Every structure is written in structure tokens, then in C-alpha cells.
């Protein structure tokens, strides 16, 4: 599973990345997390707001810090 967290590095983006890492650890899911902070790359995903979370190429959330329960539900499919 490939997870990308998009965000230029503001407080919310860092928090999102931390939450994703925590969920993976707690649930024991095998996934690669990548933080994308380059503006051009972020733009190429066609998202509007940061932080955004992308799981296996699917945009799961944009413009807000997701809740842990929500992150877990994206990863358990």
C-alpha cells in the first residue's frame, strides 16, 4: 500500500503525517508513507487544499487534518 501525504510543511500537514504514521503502527499495516512537499508535485495531483492524503492513487481527504478513525477506514479496505 502506498500512502502520500501532500503539504508544503505547515503545522496541519505535519500533524497529518504524524497521525498517518501512528495509525499504521497501531494497526500493524504494511504501508509506505511518503511526504510530498514540492508545490509542483502537489499541484500535479489536482488537489486544492493541503494537507491531502492519497492512498494508492486515490484522494482520500483534502484541506483538513483527518481523524484517526477515518485514516484507519481508508487503510483497511
Amino acid at each position, binding site marked *: 500500500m502506498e500512502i502520500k501525504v501532500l503539504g508544503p510543511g*505547515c503545522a496541519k500537514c505535519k500533524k497529518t503525517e504524524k497521525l498517518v504514521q501512528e495509525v499504521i503502527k497501531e494497526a500493524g499495516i504494511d504501508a509506505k508513507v511518503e511526504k510530498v512537499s514540492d508545490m509542483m508535485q502537489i499541484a500535479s495531483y489536482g*488537489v486544492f487544499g493541503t494537507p491531502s492524503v492519497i492512498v494508492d492513487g486515490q484522494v482520500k481527504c483534502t484541506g483538513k487534518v483527518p481523524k484517526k478513525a477515518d485514516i484507519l477506514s481508508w487503510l483497511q479496505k
Partner: protein
Amino acid sequence: MESKTTLPVQNGGKINKMMALNLLMGAIGIYLWWTIYRVLPDLSKWLTYNLLPIKEGSHLGSSVEFFFYDTPKVMMLLFLVVFGVGILRSFFTPEKTRAFLSGKSEFVGNIFAALLGIITPFCSCSAVPLFIGFVTAGVPLGVTFSFLIAAPMVNEIALGLLYGLLGWKVAAIYLGTGLFIAISAGWVIGRLKLENHVEDWVTQANAVNLTMEEEKLTWNDRFVYGWDAVKEIIGRVWIYVILGIAVGAGIHGFVPEGVMASIMGKDSWWSVPLSVVIGVPMYSNAAGVIPVVEALLGKGAALGSVLAFMMSVIALSLPEMVILRKVLKPKLIAVFVGVVACGILFVGYLFNMIL
């Protein structure tokens, strides 16, 4: 609160129960809010003159009383406004706003963009992806700017605080003039045909439009959304509010009546440009500026100058320019700052003249 979001949607009975509980809690909350709000003037007097050894009528007393009165008052107003706007915002997303704006003609588009800029949830660190998303979807450059100017300029926090501290007239003037500047500045930028001053990679960015299933929000989710907004925003701005009120309290107690009238009064032609020049490099958020504004007005500063000061503090900021530099060439940034500053000057002079 967290458990509420994961409620099974199909379980209608449970949702209705939650809804009733939410409404009941809301009603109790509003009653408590109102009761506390009403005793604040007496409470602040009691704290200042009975609990602390401060003489009534002294400079220090009037500063401390201002501080004890304004801090809880501003916090309570913020709470109410942020919660209400949070619920309202849960109906809007940048995606929907873009879809709505991409078909609009220039002038009408500027008006809608400015209005949507107020209510669409978006944080300034998302300005770049949002800008690209708008421009590549065919939203005209000027219309995009109307959105980007209105978003920080007409701020729900500022609106709520102005209403609470200075009355509905000042709040309405702020809303009207803020919208006017966003609409007209965006329109001017659109007329100047500066599309080639957007960084080249923006238009070349082939934004793969990833589809995202749209969330269905229940009323419960919207309450949670509003509550999250309260925690997030108040957690972020409370320190600015207290600093702002402390500065305001200092002005209120120690600056003699009328001093501000000579510096920021309506008779000196240079007071408006001076307010803008001081305001632009300052970076605070609306919640911190308004207590200062309240104190300045109380000391005889003219409304136009104060409005100009406030708008330049919150609408034009260096961090935002640095972020936008990634997508805009220097000349377009200069035009952006210049046009918005002109709009603010115009508003400042207008109100010093007619009031």
C-alpha cells in the same frame, strides 16, 4: 466528540436521538453563554477594584478593567462566531466553488468569487494549489484574485468581533468595503491582462483530476465540524487575542483622549497612507487587531484610518506573498499588492470624508 463521526449512517433512530441531544445541549449552552456574557461588566469591575488593590479612576485601573472585560467577552464572541461559521462552511468546499466559478463571466464572476472567498474553507498555506486548481480549470485570473483577496480580507472572526465590540454599523461597513476592494481589485487585475506573468509551470501543470467520492454529511457531522473549527481556531488565535487586548488596554488606560485624533484623525491627509504603511508589514490575525482597533477608535482615531490600518494588517502579509511567489512572477505580485493597497487607501479616505 470523535466517536460521533463514526456513527452508522443507516441507524436513523440513533441519529435522531443524537440530534435531539445536540439541540438540547445547544439550548443550555446558549442560555449559559448569555448569562455569563451579561455579568461580564460587573465581574470585570469587581475583579479590578475589589480583588486587586487598584484605585477606581486611575490609569492602571482603566487599563486593567478593559483587559478583564474584553478578554472573556472577545473569547465568548469568537466561540459563537467560529462555531456558527464552521457549520455554515461545512456546506462549501473549494471543489464546489471552483465548479461554480469556472463558467462565470468576468464581472459577475468577480462578485461571486469575493462572496465565496468569505465562506469557502481554505487556509493560506493552500493558496498555491488552490490558485493552480482555479486557473487550470478556466477560472479567469482576475476572478481568482477576487477570491484570494476576499478570503483573508473579509474574515468571519473580524466580522463577529466588530459586531460585538463596535456594533453592526461598523461590521457592515467592513463587510461592504472589504467585498468592494476584493471585487474591484480582482476586476482591475483581470483587465490588465497579466496572464503571462503567472509562472510558466502553472499552465503547463497537467493536473490529473483525481476524483474523490463526495462525503455525505449529516447534521451531526456538521456540528462536529463546527466544534472542530472552534478548537482549531481558538487554539491558534487565543494568544494573539490576549496580546491584542493587552495592547488595547494599554492604549485605553494611558493614551490621553484626543492624541489619536491628531495622528489618525480625519483632518490630516497623511493619516490613511501612514496607517497602510504601518499595517502592511505587520502580521497579525484579525482576532488580535480588533481589540487594538477598538481602543484606537475610543481615543479619537477616525474610522477610515483605522479601517485602512486593519485591512492592511490582515489582507496583505509577507508570508502570503512568499507563498504566492511560487506561482506568480514578481511583477504580478507587485501589481497585486499595489492594487489592493490602492483599494484600501480609497476606502480609508472615503470614510474619513463622509463620517
